[in-house]
Protein backbone atom coordinates (compact mmCIF):
# COMPACT_ATOMS: atom_id res chain seq x y z
CA UNK A 1 0.00 0.00 0.00
CA UNK A 2 2.62 2.51 1.05
CA UNK A 3 6.32 2.59 0.52
CA UNK A 4 7.20 3.20 4.15
CA UNK A 5 6.79 -0.38 5.22
CA UNK A 6 9.02 -2.10 2.72
CA UNK A 7 11.38 -3.52 5.28
CA UNK A 8 9.66 -5.79 7.76
CA UNK A 9 11.03 -6.29 11.25
CA UNK A 10 10.38 -9.03 13.72
CA UNK A 11 8.07 -7.82 16.52
CA UNK A 12 7.43 -9.44 19.88
CA UNK A 13 5.13 -12.14 21.11
CA UNK A 14 2.87 -11.60 24.12
CA UNK A 15 1.91 -14.54 26.29
CA UNK A 16 -0.85 -13.98 28.79
CA UNK A 17 -1.45 -16.60 31.41
CA UNK A 18 -4.13 -16.82 34.10
CA UNK A 19 -4.71 -13.10 34.09
CA UNK A 20 -7.33 -11.86 36.55
CA UNK A 21 -8.11 -8.17 36.50
CA UNK A 22 -9.83 -6.26 39.30
CA UNK A 23 -11.19 -2.79 39.96
CA UNK A 24 -10.99 -2.68 43.76
CA UNK A 25 -13.15 -5.59 44.83
CA UNK A 26 -14.87 -5.87 41.43
CA UNK A 27 -13.56 -8.79 39.41
CA UNK A 28 -13.67 -7.50 35.83
CA UNK A 29 -11.86 -10.18 33.83
CA UNK A 30 -11.32 -13.80 34.84
CA UNK A 31 -8.33 -16.05 34.10
CA UNK A 32 -7.43 -15.19 30.55
CA UNK A 33 -4.77 -17.32 28.94
CA UNK A 34 -3.82 -16.51 25.38
CA UNK A 35 -0.86 -15.98 23.11
CA UNK A 36 -0.70 -12.94 20.89
CA UNK A 37 1.32 -13.78 17.80
CA UNK A 38 4.08 -11.46 16.65
CA UNK A 39 3.58 -9.51 13.42
CA UNK A 40 -0.07 -10.43 13.34
CA UNK A 41 -3.26 -8.52 14.01
CA UNK A 42 -5.33 -9.92 16.86
CA UNK A 43 -8.87 -8.59 17.11
CA UNK A 44 -10.80 -8.65 20.38
CA UNK A 45 -14.56 -8.76 20.05
CA UNK A 46 -17.35 -9.17 22.57
CA UNK A 47 -20.35 -7.45 24.01
CA UNK A 48 -20.15 -4.12 25.79
CA UNK A 49 -18.82 -4.29 29.34
CA UNK A 50 -17.21 -7.71 28.99
CA UNK A 51 -13.77 -6.30 29.77
CA UNK A 52 -12.13 -5.81 26.37
CA UNK A 53 -10.74 -2.37 27.19
CA UNK A 54 -9.78 -3.54 30.65
CA UNK A 55 -7.85 -6.47 29.21
CA UNK A 56 -6.16 -4.30 26.60
CA UNK A 57 -5.08 -1.76 29.21
CA UNK A 58 -3.58 -4.51 31.33
CA UNK A 59 -1.21 -5.36 28.47
CA UNK A 60 0.75 -2.12 28.90
CA UNK A 61 0.10 -1.52 32.58
CA UNK A 62 -2.28 1.37 31.93
CA UNK A 63 -4.85 -0.49 34.01
CA UNK A 64 -3.09 0.27 37.27
CA UNK A 65 -3.57 4.02 36.73
CA UNK A 66 -7.14 3.62 37.94
CA UNK A 67 -7.36 4.00 41.71
CA UNK A 68 -7.65 0.60 43.41
CA UNK A 69 -7.11 -1.37 40.20
CA UNK A 70 -4.91 -4.47 40.27
CA UNK A 71 -3.95 -7.51 38.26
CA UNK A 72 -3.06 -11.11 39.07
CA UNK A 73 -1.32 -13.51 36.74
CA UNK A 74 1.37 -12.83 34.20
CA UNK A 75 1.85 -11.10 30.88
CA UNK A 76 5.07 -12.18 29.26
CA UNK A 77 6.47 -9.87 26.64
CA UNK A 78 9.39 -11.38 24.80
CA UNK A 79 10.33 -13.61 27.71
CA UNK A 80 9.91 -11.01 30.48
CA UNK A 81 6.92 -10.78 32.79
CA UNK A 82 5.75 -7.17 32.70
CA UNK A 83 4.15 -7.64 36.12
CA UNK A 84 7.32 -8.92 37.76
CA UNK A 85 8.26 -7.07 40.93
CA UNK A 86 11.13 -4.92 39.67
CA UNK A 87 9.68 -4.02 36.27
CA UNK A 88 9.25 -0.30 35.59
CA UNK A 89 5.80 0.38 34.11
CA UNK A 90 7.23 3.31 32.15
CA UNK A 91 9.66 1.01 30.36
CA UNK A 92 6.80 -1.37 29.57
CA UNK A 93 4.79 1.43 27.98
CA UNK A 94 7.72 2.38 25.80
CA UNK A 95 7.51 -1.11 24.33
CA UNK A 96 3.75 -1.37 24.16
CA UNK A 97 2.09 1.67 22.59
CA UNK A 98 -1.58 2.49 22.64
CA UNK A 99 -4.13 4.27 20.45
CA UNK A 100 -7.34 5.33 22.13
CA UNK A 101 -10.96 5.33 21.10
CA UNK A 102 -11.13 9.11 20.89
CA UNK A 103 -8.32 10.90 19.11
CA UNK A 104 -6.39 12.86 21.73
CA UNK A 105 -3.60 14.94 20.19
CA UNK A 106 -1.86 17.25 22.67
CA UNK A 107 -3.60 20.62 22.29
CA UNK A 108 -0.54 22.71 23.12
CA UNK A 109 1.57 21.12 20.40
CA UNK A 110 1.76 21.44 16.65
CA UNK A 111 1.22 18.47 14.34
CA UNK A 112 4.95 17.87 14.07
CA UNK A 113 5.51 18.22 17.81
CA UNK A 114 2.67 15.81 18.49
CA UNK A 115 4.40 13.15 16.45
CA UNK A 116 7.73 13.90 18.11
CA UNK A 117 6.09 14.08 21.55
CA UNK A 118 7.14 10.62 22.68
CA UNK A 119 10.78 11.41 21.95
CA UNK A 120 10.70 15.02 23.15
CA UNK A 121 8.85 14.28 26.37
CA UNK A 122 11.30 11.54 27.19
CA UNK A 123 14.04 14.09 26.56
CA UNK A 124 15.96 11.73 24.42
CA UNK A 125 18.51 14.04 22.90
CA UNK A 126 17.79 13.99 19.22
CA UNK A 127 19.09 16.37 16.61
CA UNK A 128 16.66 18.55 14.71
CA UNK A 129 17.07 16.78 11.36
CA UNK A 130 16.93 13.40 13.06
CA UNK A 131 13.62 14.38 14.66
CA UNK A 132 12.34 15.70 11.34
CA UNK A 133 13.16 12.40 9.76
CA UNK A 134 11.34 10.44 12.48
CA UNK A 135 8.32 12.73 12.13
CA UNK A 136 8.19 12.21 8.39
CA UNK A 137 8.67 8.46 8.65
CA UNK A 138 5.96 8.12 11.30
CA UNK A 139 3.51 10.29 9.40
CA UNK A 140 4.16 8.32 6.24
CA UNK A 141 3.67 5.15 8.27
CA UNK A 142 0.30 6.47 9.40
CA UNK A 143 -0.69 7.48 5.84
CA UNK A 144 -0.95 11.10 6.87
CA UNK A 145 2.21 12.67 5.47
CA UNK A 146 0.76 13.86 2.15
CA UNK A 147 -2.13 15.59 3.91
CA UNK A 148 -0.13 17.49 6.51
CA UNK A 149 3.37 17.98 5.15
CA UNK A 150 2.63 21.62 4.33
CA UNK A 151 1.36 22.47 7.79
CA UNK A 152 3.40 20.61 10.35
CA UNK A 153 3.50 23.71 12.55
CA UNK A 154 -0.27 24.06 12.80
CA UNK A 155 -1.96 22.72 15.98
CA UNK A 156 -3.03 19.08 15.96
CA UNK A 157 -6.58 20.08 16.80
CA UNK A 158 -6.90 21.76 13.39
CA UNK A 159 -7.16 18.32 11.73
CA UNK A 160 -10.33 16.36 11.06
CA UNK A 161 -11.29 13.52 13.39
CA UNK A 162 -9.93 10.82 11.08
CA UNK A 163 -6.72 12.75 10.52
CA UNK A 164 -6.38 13.27 14.27
CA UNK A 165 -6.71 9.54 14.82
CA UNK A 166 -4.00 8.86 12.24
CA UNK A 167 -1.91 11.55 13.94
CA UNK A 168 -2.30 9.62 17.18
CA UNK A 169 -1.21 6.44 15.43
CA UNK A 170 1.81 8.29 14.03
CA UNK A 171 2.58 9.53 17.53
CA UNK A 172 2.36 5.99 18.89
CA UNK A 173 4.64 4.46 16.22
CA UNK A 174 7.18 7.30 16.41
CA UNK A 175 8.58 5.79 19.60
CA UNK A 176 8.90 2.45 17.77
CA UNK A 177 7.11 0.19 20.19
CA UNK A 178 7.06 -3.57 19.75
CA UNK A 179 3.33 -3.95 20.28
CA UNK A 180 0.54 -1.55 19.36
CA UNK A 181 -2.76 -1.67 21.23
CA UNK A 182 -5.81 -0.05 19.67
CA UNK A 183 -9.05 0.41 21.54
CA UNK A 184 -11.87 0.91 19.03
CA UNK A 185 -9.70 3.25 16.96
CA UNK A 186 -12.37 3.69 14.27
CA UNK A 187 -15.51 4.11 16.32
CA UNK A 188 -15.54 7.88 15.79
CA UNK A 189 -14.70 7.70 12.09
CA UNK A 190 -16.60 7.50 8.81
CA UNK A 191 -16.32 4.45 6.53
CA UNK A 192 -13.66 6.02 4.31
CA UNK A 193 -11.41 6.97 7.20
CA UNK A 194 -12.09 3.56 8.75
CA UNK A 195 -10.90 1.82 5.60
CA UNK A 196 -7.83 4.04 5.56
CA UNK A 197 -7.00 2.96 9.09
CA UNK A 198 -7.65 -0.70 8.31
CA UNK A 199 -5.26 -0.48 5.37
CA UNK A 200 -2.80 1.14 7.68
CA UNK A 201 -3.18 -1.68 10.20
CA UNK A 202 -2.45 -4.14 7.41
CA UNK A 203 0.79 -2.27 6.70
CA UNK A 204 1.76 -1.83 10.32
CA UNK A 205 1.76 -5.52 11.11
CA UNK A 206 4.93 -5.86 9.08
CA UNK A 207 6.70 -4.11 11.93
CA UNK A 208 4.47 -4.43 14.96
CA UNK A 209 2.34 -6.86 16.86
CA UNK A 210 -1.15 -5.38 16.87
CA UNK A 211 -4.10 -5.92 19.17
CA UNK A 212 -7.30 -4.16 18.23
CA UNK A 213 -10.60 -3.99 20.09
CA UNK A 214 -13.56 -3.54 17.82
CA UNK A 215 -17.34 -3.74 17.83
CA UNK A 216 -17.39 -3.97 14.09
CA UNK A 217 -17.55 -7.61 12.93
CA UNK A 218 -16.63 -6.75 9.35
CA UNK A 219 -13.64 -4.86 10.62
CA UNK A 220 -12.47 -7.83 12.64
CA UNK A 221 -13.02 -10.09 9.65
CA UNK A 222 -11.26 -7.76 7.22
CA UNK A 223 -8.35 -6.52 9.24
CA UNK A 224 -7.29 -9.27 11.63
CA UNK A 225 -5.47 -12.58 11.47
CA UNK A 226 -6.67 -13.85 14.83
CA UNK A 227 -9.84 -13.09 16.71
CA UNK A 228 -10.47 -13.43 20.43
CA UNK A 229 -14.05 -13.51 21.65
CA UNK A 230 -14.74 -12.27 25.18
CA UNK A 231 -18.03 -12.79 26.92
CA UNK A 232 -19.91 -12.38 30.17
CA UNK A 233 -21.87 -15.33 31.41
CA UNK A 234 -24.24 -13.14 33.40
CA UNK A 235 -24.13 -9.44 34.02
CA UNK A 236 -22.12 -8.87 37.20
CA UNK A 237 -19.88 -11.86 36.47
CA UNK A 238 -16.32 -11.26 35.33
CA UNK A 239 -15.67 -11.31 31.59
CA UNK A 240 -13.86 -14.32 30.14
CA UNK A 241 -12.01 -15.31 27.04
CA UNK A 242 -14.34 -17.73 25.28
CA UNK A 243 -12.41 -18.56 22.17
CA UNK A 244 -9.31 -17.53 20.29
CA UNK A 245 -8.61 -18.79 16.80
CA UNK A 246 -7.75 -17.76 13.28
CA UNK A 247 -10.18 -15.09 12.18
CA UNK A 248 -11.62 -17.14 9.31
CA UNK A 249 -12.24 -20.05 11.68
CA UNK A 250 -13.99 -17.82 14.22
CA UNK A 251 -16.25 -16.39 11.56
CA UNK A 252 -16.96 -19.58 9.62
CA UNK A 253 -16.64 -22.47 11.99
CA UNK A 254 -16.24 -21.52 15.65
CA UNK A 255 -16.05 -24.19 18.30
CA UNK A 256 -18.17 -22.45 20.85
CA UNK A 257 -21.90 -21.90 20.52
CA UNK A 258 -21.73 -18.45 22.14
CA UNK A 259 -19.11 -17.34 19.64
CA UNK A 260 -21.21 -18.52 16.74
CA UNK A 261 -24.24 -16.67 18.07
CA UNK A 262 -22.26 -13.50 18.60
CA UNK A 263 -20.53 -13.36 15.23
CA UNK A 264 -23.72 -14.20 13.40
CA UNK A 265 -25.68 -11.59 15.30
CA UNK A 266 -27.77 -13.87 17.55
CA UNK A 267 -27.16 -12.96 21.16
CA UNK A 268 -28.07 -14.63 24.41
Amino acid at each position, binding site marked *: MTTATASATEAKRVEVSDLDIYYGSFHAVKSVTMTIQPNKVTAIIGSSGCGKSTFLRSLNR*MHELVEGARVEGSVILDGQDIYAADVDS*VMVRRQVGMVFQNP*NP*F*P*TMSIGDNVAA*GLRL*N*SRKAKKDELDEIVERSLRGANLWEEVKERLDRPG*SSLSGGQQQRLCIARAIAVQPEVLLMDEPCSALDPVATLAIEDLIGDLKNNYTIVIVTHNMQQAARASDFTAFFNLENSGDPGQLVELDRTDTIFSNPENKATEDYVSGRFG
Partner: protein
Amino acid sequence: MRERATERERRYEVERDGREPEDERGREAGTTDARTPLVGGSLPRWGPWAVFSGVTAAVAGVLSVLGFNVALLAVASVVLTGAIIYGWARAVEGRRKATDRAITIAVSSAFALALTPLISLLFTVTSRGLARFDVQLFTESMRGVLGEGGGIQHAIVGTLVITGVATAASVPIGIMAAIYLHEYGRGRLKRALTFFVDVMTGIPSIVAGLFAYALFVLIYGPGIRLGVMGAVALSVLMIPIVVRSTEEMLRVVPNGLREASYALGVPKWRTIVKVVLPTSFAGIVSGAMIAVARIIGETAPLLITTGVFNSVNFNPFDGRMENLAVFAYNEYATPGIPNEPYIDRAWAAALTLLLIVMILFFVARLISARFGVKTR
Protein backbone atom coordinates in the same frame (compact mmCIF):
# COMPACT_ATOMS: atom_id res chain seq x y z
CA MET B 1 -22.21 17.42 -2.15
CA ARG B 2 -19.96 20.31 -3.04
CA GLU B 3 -22.79 22.25 -4.68
CA ARG B 4 -25.04 21.85 -1.70
CA ALA B 5 -22.31 23.03 0.64
CA THR B 6 -21.72 26.20 -1.33
CA GLU B 7 -25.46 26.82 -1.46
CA ARG B 8 -25.57 26.54 2.29
CA GLU B 9 -22.63 28.89 2.62
CA ARG B 10 -24.30 31.45 0.42
CA ARG B 11 -27.44 31.32 2.47
CA TYR B 12 -25.43 31.67 5.62
CA GLU B 13 -23.80 34.80 4.22
CA VAL B 14 -27.18 36.26 3.37
CA GLU B 15 -28.72 35.41 6.70
CA ARG B 16 -25.82 36.94 8.51
CA ASP B 17 -26.57 40.18 6.73
CA GLY B 18 -29.99 40.08 8.32
CA ARG B 19 -31.87 39.55 5.06
CA GLU B 20 -33.60 36.42 3.95
CA PRO B 21 -32.73 34.86 0.61
CA GLU B 22 -35.04 36.15 -2.09
CA ASP B 23 -36.39 32.82 -3.30
CA GLU B 24 -37.22 31.69 0.24
CA ARG B 25 -39.31 34.75 0.86
CA GLY B 26 -41.10 34.37 -2.45
CA ARG B 27 -41.96 30.79 -1.64
CA GLU B 28 -43.18 31.69 1.84
CA ALA B 29 -45.48 34.39 0.47
CA GLY B 30 -47.08 32.05 -2.00
CA THR B 31 -47.66 29.31 0.54
CA THR B 32 -51.18 28.00 0.51
CA ASP B 33 -50.70 24.38 1.52
CA ALA B 34 -51.12 23.06 5.05
CA ARG B 35 -47.51 23.13 6.14
CA THR B 36 -46.87 24.21 9.71
CA PRO B 37 -45.90 27.86 9.44
CA LEU B 38 -42.32 28.54 10.41
CA VAL B 39 -42.80 32.28 10.43
CA GLY B 40 -44.65 33.79 13.39
CA GLY B 41 -45.56 37.31 14.42
CA SER B 42 -42.69 39.36 15.68
CA LEU B 43 -42.11 42.69 17.40
CA PRO B 44 -40.22 45.24 15.32
CA ARG B 45 -36.50 45.47 16.07
CA TRP B 46 -36.82 48.94 17.52
CA GLY B 47 -39.81 47.92 19.68
CA PRO B 48 -38.10 47.30 23.04
CA TRP B 49 -35.90 50.38 22.74
CA ALA B 50 -38.83 52.59 21.76
CA VAL B 51 -40.85 51.33 24.72
CA PHE B 52 -37.89 51.86 27.03
CA SER B 53 -37.28 55.46 25.93
CA GLY B 54 -40.99 56.26 26.02
CA VAL B 55 -41.41 54.81 29.50
CA THR B 56 -38.27 56.53 30.79
CA ALA B 57 -39.48 59.90 29.48
CA ALA B 58 -42.92 59.38 31.04
CA VAL B 59 -41.51 58.31 34.41
CA ALA B 60 -39.10 61.24 34.36
CA GLY B 61 -42.05 63.54 33.74
CA VAL B 62 -44.01 62.15 36.67
CA LEU B 63 -40.97 62.22 38.95
CA SER B 64 -40.15 65.83 38.11
CA VAL B 65 -43.48 66.69 39.68
CA LEU B 66 -43.11 64.39 42.69
CA GLY B 67 -39.41 65.04 43.31
CA PHE B 68 -36.60 63.65 41.14
CA ASN B 69 -34.63 60.52 42.05
CA VAL B 70 -32.30 58.69 39.64
CA ALA B 71 -32.50 55.27 41.29
CA LEU B 72 -36.28 55.36 41.38
CA LEU B 73 -36.32 56.47 37.73
CA ALA B 74 -34.13 53.54 36.65
CA VAL B 75 -36.00 50.90 38.66
CA ALA B 76 -39.44 52.16 37.65
CA SER B 77 -38.60 52.41 33.95
CA VAL B 78 -37.04 48.96 33.78
CA VAL B 79 -39.93 47.31 35.61
CA LEU B 80 -42.55 49.14 33.54
CA THR B 81 -40.72 48.43 30.27
CA GLY B 82 -40.49 44.77 31.19
CA ALA B 83 -44.20 44.56 31.89
CA ILE B 84 -45.20 46.38 28.70
CA ILE B 85 -42.86 44.37 26.47
CA TYR B 86 -44.08 41.13 28.02
CA GLY B 87 -47.70 42.05 27.41
CA TRP B 88 -47.05 43.24 23.88
CA ALA B 89 -44.92 40.23 22.94
CA ARG B 90 -47.48 37.88 24.44
CA ALA B 91 -50.19 39.39 22.26
CA VAL B 92 -48.13 39.46 19.06
CA GLU B 93 -45.56 36.68 19.37
CA GLY B 94 -47.04 34.14 21.77
CA ARG B 95 -46.01 32.90 25.18
CA ARG B 96 -42.65 31.31 24.49
CA LYS B 97 -41.14 34.39 22.91
CA ALA B 98 -42.74 36.68 25.51
CA THR B 99 -41.11 34.66 28.29
CA ASP B 100 -37.85 34.80 26.38
CA ARG B 101 -38.06 38.59 26.22
CA ALA B 102 -38.96 38.89 29.89
CA ILE B 103 -35.99 36.75 30.91
CA THR B 104 -33.69 38.67 28.58
CA ILE B 105 -34.75 41.93 30.21
CA ALA B 106 -34.35 40.47 33.71
CA VAL B 107 -30.87 39.15 32.99
CA SER B 108 -29.69 42.33 31.29
CA SER B 109 -30.97 44.45 34.17
CA ALA B 110 -29.19 42.22 36.67
CA PHE B 111 -26.03 42.64 34.63
CA ALA B 112 -26.47 46.43 34.54
CA LEU B 113 -27.13 46.43 38.27
CA ALA B 114 -23.95 44.46 38.92
CA LEU B 115 -21.98 46.80 36.69
CA THR B 116 -23.32 50.06 38.14
CA PRO B 117 -21.21 50.19 41.32
CA LEU B 118 -18.16 49.18 39.33
CA ILE B 119 -18.58 51.94 36.78
CA SER B 120 -19.42 54.42 39.49
CA LEU B 121 -16.28 53.43 41.36
CA LEU B 122 -14.10 53.66 38.25
CA PHE B 123 -15.57 57.05 37.48
CA THR B 124 -15.04 58.39 41.00
CA VAL B 125 -11.50 57.11 41.31
CA THR B 126 -10.54 58.43 37.89
CA SER B 127 -12.14 61.85 38.23
CA ARG B 128 -10.84 62.50 41.72
CA GLY B 129 -7.48 60.83 41.14
CA LEU B 130 -6.69 62.98 38.10
CA ALA B 131 -6.32 66.12 40.26
CA ARG B 132 -2.85 65.02 41.33
CA PHE B 133 -2.03 62.57 38.53
CA ASP B 134 1.06 64.45 37.39
CA VAL B 135 4.72 63.72 36.72
CA GLN B 136 5.73 64.85 40.19
CA LEU B 137 3.56 62.08 41.64
CA PHE B 138 5.82 59.47 40.13
CA THR B 139 9.20 61.14 40.52
CA GLU B 140 9.03 62.18 44.17
CA SER B 141 8.42 60.54 47.49
CA MET B 142 6.94 62.12 50.59
CA ARG B 143 10.34 62.66 52.17
CA GLY B 144 10.22 65.99 53.99
CA VAL B 145 6.94 66.99 52.40
CA LEU B 146 4.29 68.75 54.46
CA GLY B 147 1.12 70.03 52.85
CA GLU B 148 1.19 70.41 49.06
CA GLY B 149 3.42 68.64 46.54
CA GLY B 150 5.21 65.36 47.10
CA GLY B 151 4.75 62.07 45.27
CA ILE B 152 4.05 58.41 45.77
CA GLN B 153 7.15 56.92 44.25
CA HIS B 154 8.02 55.27 47.56
CA ALA B 155 4.54 53.71 47.81
CA ILE B 156 4.63 52.42 44.22
CA VAL B 157 8.05 50.86 44.79
CA GLY B 158 6.84 49.35 48.07
CA THR B 159 3.68 47.94 46.52
CA LEU B 160 5.58 46.40 43.61
CA VAL B 161 8.32 44.94 45.81
CA ILE B 162 6.00 43.54 48.48
CA THR B 163 3.53 42.14 45.95
CA GLY B 164 6.36 40.81 43.82
CA VAL B 165 7.98 38.97 46.70
CA ALA B 166 4.61 37.60 47.85
CA THR B 167 3.79 36.44 44.31
CA ALA B 168 7.19 34.89 43.73
CA ALA B 169 6.73 32.87 46.89
CA SER B 170 3.04 32.00 46.63
CA VAL B 171 2.56 31.12 42.99
CA PRO B 172 5.10 28.26 42.87
CA ILE B 173 4.03 26.97 46.29
CA GLY B 174 0.35 27.23 45.36
CA ILE B 175 0.78 25.52 42.00
CA MET B 176 2.82 22.72 43.49
CA ALA B 177 0.33 22.23 46.29
CA ALA B 178 -2.46 22.05 43.74
CA ILE B 179 -0.49 19.52 41.70
CA TYR B 180 -0.03 17.44 44.81
CA LEU B 181 -3.70 17.62 45.70
CA HIS B 182 -5.00 16.86 42.24
CA GLU B 183 -2.42 14.56 40.70
CA TYR B 184 -0.92 12.72 43.65
CA GLY B 185 -3.14 13.14 46.71
CA ARG B 186 -5.40 10.28 47.67
CA GLY B 187 -7.93 9.41 50.33
CA ARG B 188 -8.19 10.99 53.78
CA LEU B 189 -5.09 13.15 53.66
CA LYS B 190 -6.20 14.74 50.41
CA ARG B 191 -9.67 15.47 51.75
CA ALA B 192 -8.27 16.97 54.94
CA LEU B 193 -5.84 19.20 53.02
CA THR B 194 -8.54 20.34 50.62
CA PHE B 195 -10.71 21.25 53.58
CA PHE B 196 -7.98 23.31 55.23
CA VAL B 197 -7.16 25.10 52.00
CA ASP B 198 -10.83 26.04 51.73
CA VAL B 199 -10.79 27.28 55.30
CA MET B 200 -7.65 29.29 54.62
CA THR B 201 -9.32 31.19 51.79
CA GLY B 202 -11.60 32.65 54.45
CA ILE B 203 -8.88 33.95 56.80
CA PRO B 204 -9.45 37.65 57.61
CA SER B 205 -6.50 39.57 56.23
CA ILE B 206 -5.69 41.17 59.60
CA VAL B 207 -5.18 37.69 61.04
CA ALA B 208 -2.64 36.96 58.32
CA GLY B 209 -0.91 40.22 59.25
CA LEU B 210 -0.83 39.33 62.93
CA PHE B 211 0.53 35.89 62.07
CA ALA B 212 3.43 37.39 60.11
CA TYR B 213 4.05 39.95 62.84
CA ALA B 214 4.07 37.30 65.57
CA LEU B 215 6.41 35.14 63.48
CA PHE B 216 8.96 37.90 62.98
CA VAL B 217 8.70 39.13 66.56
CA LEU B 218 9.92 35.69 67.62
CA ILE B 219 13.06 36.28 65.59
CA TYR B 220 13.72 40.03 65.78
CA GLY B 221 11.84 41.13 68.91
CA PRO B 222 8.87 43.50 69.22
CA GLY B 223 8.41 46.54 67.01
CA ILE B 224 10.02 44.97 63.98
CA ARG B 225 8.80 46.28 60.57
CA LEU B 226 10.07 44.80 57.30
CA GLY B 227 8.84 44.66 53.72
CA VAL B 228 9.26 40.90 53.72
CA MET B 229 6.93 40.59 56.71
CA GLY B 230 4.21 42.10 54.56
CA ALA B 231 5.06 39.67 51.79
CA VAL B 232 4.71 36.76 54.22
CA ALA B 233 1.34 38.03 55.39
CA LEU B 234 0.15 38.45 51.80
CA SER B 235 1.43 34.97 50.88
CA VAL B 236 -0.74 33.48 53.59
CA LEU B 237 -3.70 35.12 51.88
CA MET B 238 -2.58 34.32 48.38
CA ILE B 239 -1.54 30.67 48.54
CA PRO B 240 -5.01 29.21 49.15
CA ILE B 241 -6.44 31.25 46.26
CA VAL B 242 -3.74 30.01 43.91
CA VAL B 243 -4.21 26.42 45.10
CA ARG B 244 -7.95 26.53 44.55
CA SER B 245 -7.84 28.11 41.11
CA THR B 246 -4.98 25.89 39.90
CA GLU B 247 -6.73 22.78 41.14
CA GLU B 248 -9.83 23.82 39.24
CA MET B 249 -7.77 24.26 36.07
CA LEU B 250 -6.05 20.88 36.47
CA ARG B 251 -9.45 19.29 36.82
CA VAL B 252 -10.51 20.41 33.34
CA VAL B 253 -7.47 18.89 31.64
CA PRO B 254 -8.94 15.79 29.95
CA ASN B 255 -7.72 12.53 31.42
CA GLY B 256 -7.21 11.25 27.88
CA LEU B 257 -4.21 13.56 27.50
CA ARG B 258 -2.54 12.16 30.59
CA GLU B 259 -3.19 8.61 29.38
CA ALA B 260 -1.91 9.43 25.91
CA SER B 261 1.29 10.66 27.47
CA TYR B 262 1.67 7.64 29.78
CA ALA B 263 1.04 5.36 26.81
CA LEU B 264 4.07 6.91 25.10
CA GLY B 265 6.15 5.81 28.06
CA VAL B 266 6.43 9.28 29.57
CA PRO B 267 6.87 9.24 33.37
CA LYS B 268 4.24 10.88 35.53
CA TRP B 269 6.20 13.96 36.59
CA ARG B 270 7.14 14.71 33.00
CA THR B 271 3.55 14.23 31.90
CA ILE B 272 2.55 16.82 34.48
CA VAL B 273 5.26 19.29 33.52
CA LYS B 274 5.06 18.89 29.76
CA VAL B 275 1.43 18.03 29.09
CA VAL B 276 -0.86 18.89 32.00
CA LEU B 277 0.61 22.26 32.99
CA PRO B 278 0.95 23.64 29.44
CA THR B 279 -2.62 22.61 28.67
CA SER B 280 -3.95 24.46 31.70
CA PHE B 281 -1.43 27.29 31.49
CA ALA B 282 -3.81 30.10 30.54
CA GLY B 283 -6.17 29.24 33.37
CA ILE B 284 -3.38 28.98 35.92
CA VAL B 285 -1.99 32.38 34.89
CA SER B 286 -5.34 34.09 35.20
CA GLY B 287 -5.95 32.37 38.54
CA ALA B 288 -2.60 33.69 39.78
CA MET B 289 -3.49 37.15 38.47
CA ILE B 290 -6.77 37.13 40.36
CA ALA B 291 -4.84 36.22 43.48
CA VAL B 292 -2.43 39.11 42.87
CA ALA B 293 -5.29 41.52 42.31
CA ARG B 294 -6.88 40.30 45.51
CA ILE B 295 -3.82 41.09 47.67
CA ILE B 296 -2.28 44.09 45.95
CA GLY B 297 -4.78 46.41 47.59
CA GLU B 298 -4.49 44.94 51.09
CA THR B 299 -4.14 47.54 53.85
CA ALA B 300 -4.67 46.09 57.29
CA PRO B 301 -1.98 43.36 57.33
CA LEU B 302 0.57 45.77 55.88
CA LEU B 303 -0.11 48.48 58.46
CA ILE B 304 1.17 46.18 61.17
CA THR B 305 3.95 44.46 59.22
CA THR B 306 5.57 46.97 56.86
CA GLY B 307 4.59 50.12 58.72
CA VAL B 308 4.54 53.67 57.40
CA PHE B 309 7.51 55.26 55.70
CA ASN B 310 8.09 58.43 53.70
CA SER B 311 11.12 57.54 51.57
CA VAL B 312 11.82 55.11 48.78
CA ASN B 313 13.04 51.73 50.02
CA PHE B 314 13.84 48.95 47.55
CA ASN B 315 15.03 46.42 50.09
CA PRO B 316 12.32 44.26 51.67
CA PHE B 317 14.80 42.99 54.25
CA ASP B 318 15.75 46.40 55.55
CA GLY B 319 13.30 48.51 57.50
CA ARG B 320 9.89 49.94 56.80
CA MET B 321 8.23 50.14 53.41
CA GLU B 322 5.30 52.23 52.29
CA ASN B 323 2.69 50.88 49.92
CA LEU B 324 -0.15 52.42 47.94
CA ALA B 325 -3.09 51.16 49.96
CA VAL B 326 -1.58 52.10 53.32
CA PHE B 327 -0.52 55.45 51.88
CA ALA B 328 -4.02 56.23 50.59
CA TYR B 329 -5.49 55.16 53.90
CA ASN B 330 -3.16 57.35 55.97
CA GLU B 331 -3.52 60.40 53.75
CA TYR B 332 -7.27 60.10 54.01
CA ALA B 333 -7.51 59.12 57.68
CA THR B 334 -5.07 61.68 59.11
CA PRO B 335 -4.75 64.60 56.70
CA GLY B 336 -2.94 67.81 57.63
CA ILE B 337 -4.38 71.29 57.39
CA PRO B 338 -5.45 72.30 54.77
CA ASN B 339 -6.52 68.79 53.88
CA GLU B 340 -6.98 69.06 50.06
CA PRO B 341 -3.43 68.04 49.07
CA TYR B 342 -3.64 64.98 51.31
CA ILE B 343 -7.02 63.90 49.99
CA ASP B 344 -5.91 64.48 46.39
CA ARG B 345 -2.80 62.37 46.92
CA ALA B 346 -4.91 59.59 48.39
CA TRP B 347 -7.14 59.49 45.31
CA ALA B 348 -4.15 59.65 42.98
CA ALA B 349 -2.65 56.68 44.84
CA ALA B 350 -5.92 54.76 44.44
CA LEU B 351 -5.97 55.52 40.73
CA THR B 352 -2.36 54.36 40.39
CA LEU B 353 -3.19 51.10 42.15
CA LEU B 354 -6.09 50.56 39.77
CA LEU B 355 -3.86 51.18 36.77
CA ILE B 356 -1.21 48.78 38.05
CA VAL B 357 -3.84 46.03 38.37
CA MET B 358 -5.09 46.76 34.85
CA ILE B 359 -1.58 46.59 33.42
CA LEU B 360 -0.94 43.31 35.23
CA PHE B 361 -4.10 41.78 33.80
CA PHE B 362 -3.15 42.96 30.35
CA VAL B 363 0.30 41.39 30.65
CA ALA B 364 -1.25 38.16 31.94
CA ARG B 365 -3.51 38.06 28.90
CA LEU B 366 -0.54 38.46 26.60
CA ILE B 367 1.35 35.71 28.40
CA SER B 368 -1.48 33.21 28.22
CA ALA B 369 -2.21 34.04 24.58
CA ARG B 370 1.44 33.51 23.78
CA PHE B 371 2.00 30.22 25.61
CA GLY B 372 -1.45 28.67 26.06
CA VAL B 373 -3.40 26.15 24.00
CA LYS B 374 -3.27 27.01 20.33
CA THR B 375 -6.43 26.54 18.36
CA ARG B 376 -5.44 27.97 15.00
